[in-house]
């Protein structure tokens, strides 16, 4: 469209252009996320030789050479096991701490409630590198350094704000009258919770737990600083970044990304709930 034609530009033209920009933005954003994942996939499913050669093929060869190499790499399986252990422990701890806090926030009025909600998020405002040195010193003193529990505690600190906010929003979605009705029908506070609230909230709790798992699974900085022998997968790959062959990096990246992607996709509905967007 030329400058002279601007006057003649009618509403339908403008709408058409708008739709084009809208569509193009969507394609661009999707590509932004999907293209790297696709290359990761291709290179993981190709033989080590073709991963190291150039040009790259646009299609995977479905060769398990890279993955086999990854699995046989010294220390990888131990690192994976550590990652799973730390993530599972983080999941249990952050739900154990976060869900009661979420319940309290949604059901009780107490002084400083609004401030507490904000402060919960503020824990994420401290950059981990700032805390790393004092933490490492503290951990060495208490003997928590280089242990699964020690790292899980740090990851729990990172995951708890989200656990609190997600469960707060889930509990708030359950009318308090349901609990009150249960109390009048013979329940104690505890049985009303287990018989009425818990069944209704369970899918959301699972989602929140999985989110905590993913946070821990993906975390690299604290893992790299606070462990030496008992490396998690992220820390292990980071440590071997310089020395490991390129196909190992691709396979490792793939193994790291997949659980996170699958989990997040599975629980996406509940993550929206955290931001107050009505689910379904």
């Amino acid at each position, binding site marked *: 469209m030329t400058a002279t034609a601007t006057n003649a530009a009618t509403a339908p033209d403008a709408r058409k252009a708008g739709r084009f920009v809208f569509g193009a933005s969507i394609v661009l954003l999707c590509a932004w996320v999907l293209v790297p994942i696709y290359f990761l996939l291709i290179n993981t499913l190709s033989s080590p030789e073709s991963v190291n050669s150039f040009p790259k093929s646009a299609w995977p060869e479905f060769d398990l050479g890279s993955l086999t190499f990854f699995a046989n790499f010294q220390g990888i399986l131990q690192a994976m096991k550590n990652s799973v252990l730390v993530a599972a422990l983080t999941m249990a701890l952050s739900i154990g701490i976060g869900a009661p806090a979420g319940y309290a926030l949604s059901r009780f009025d107490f002084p400083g409630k609004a401030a507490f909600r904000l402060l919960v998020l503020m824990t994420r405002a401290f950059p981990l590198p700032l805390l790393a040195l004092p933490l490492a010193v503290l951990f060495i003193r208490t003997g928590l350094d280089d242990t699964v529990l020690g790292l899980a505690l740090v990851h729990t600190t990172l995951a708890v704000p989200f656990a609190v906010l997600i469960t707060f929003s889930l509990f708030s979605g359950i*009318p308090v*009258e*349901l609990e*009150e*009705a*249960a*109390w*009048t*029908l*013979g*329940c*104690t506070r505890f*049985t009303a919770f287990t018989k*009425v609230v818990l*069944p*209704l909230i369970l899918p959301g709790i699972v989602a929140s737990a999985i989110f905590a798992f993913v946070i821990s699974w993906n975390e690299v900085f604290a893992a790299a600083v606070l462990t030496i022998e008992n490396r998690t997968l992220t820390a292990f790959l980071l440590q071997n970044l310089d020395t490991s062959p390129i196909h190992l990096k691709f396979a490792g990246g793939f193994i790291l990304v997949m659980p996170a992607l699958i989990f997040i996709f599975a629980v996406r509905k509940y993550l929206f709930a955290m931001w107050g967007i009505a689910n379904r």
Partner: protein
Amino acid sequence: MAEIRIKNVAKTFGSYQALQSIDLTIADQEFMVLLGASGCGKTTLLRIVAGLETASQGEVWIGNRRVDGLPPRERGIAMVFQNYAVFPHLTVFENIGFGLRMQKEPQAEVKRRVERTAGLMHIDHLLKRYSGELSGGQRQRVAVARALAMEPDVILMDEPLSNLDALLRLEMRAELKGVLAESRTTAIYVTHDQVEAMSLADRIAVMHEGRIVQAATPIEVYRNPAARFVAGFIGNPPMNFLPAAPAGGGNWTVAGQSFAGPSADRRKLDFAIRPEDLRPADRGITATAKVVEPLGAHLLVTCDVDGAQFRAVLDSDMVVRPGDRLTLAPLPDRIRWFDPETTEAVA
């Protein structure tokens, strides 16, 4: 036997006084309606009886037990909530049987009582459904059936019909009255709807700003309001009020006319009459018609008497036009008098 006695109960939320010193006794098997505008404290009072709210002071007795320190489950009550509170993860059967299961009743007894109350509320065909598959009216029936299945001493209802549409409300109202009369439980029913209150109650407690202004039978509340607030709140349209000046010998001058009234030694009183207790006559209060509303059954005429608003419900055959001057005679035994300062009725 479940008489409810509320003794000197008060409730404050922070600096806000929601209830001030409530005394009320509800007889065994009586249907008591707490009536008032929103924010008058009626729901708070009900929740204190239920045990969902703790009173700041005072005592609550159900039967021969003092219950205000007990949790809801130990008070022998069942409650119906405004938004029904039907458990979404359970079937209708399990909802109605929930309380019985908590009491560890044997399966056969649970089944018998669920089926009996479901039959009573005409929901026996819905027992396998979930709450999401029910209409508002059906959910309301489940909530009532769930309360009745407990066979409680006391049933508490918090505006149970206010979320239903008008036609359904009428139907449920009549049904509720029949079912509750048969169940022989003591009932407290909270509503802001005066028609609901009049039609259901054995006695109405009219509440205003955290106090009970009058607790009496519906017809007594209607005919002999204890305070000007009750007179203006009950009845649609509400009572008319006109200022009255003493004319000596127990007579009072109202809008230029003399009426026999209380012989009290007061400088002024408020004269009150219900709109339907006015008749067109040769002698009476002179009123200028402002708005004429033909309502089918009768004619509602809003008039002006010495600058005050004055309504009359007249026969629908009468022809009245805005601007017409009417002479309206009040039925002598229906005239009521109120003290303008204390707002209380004067005999």
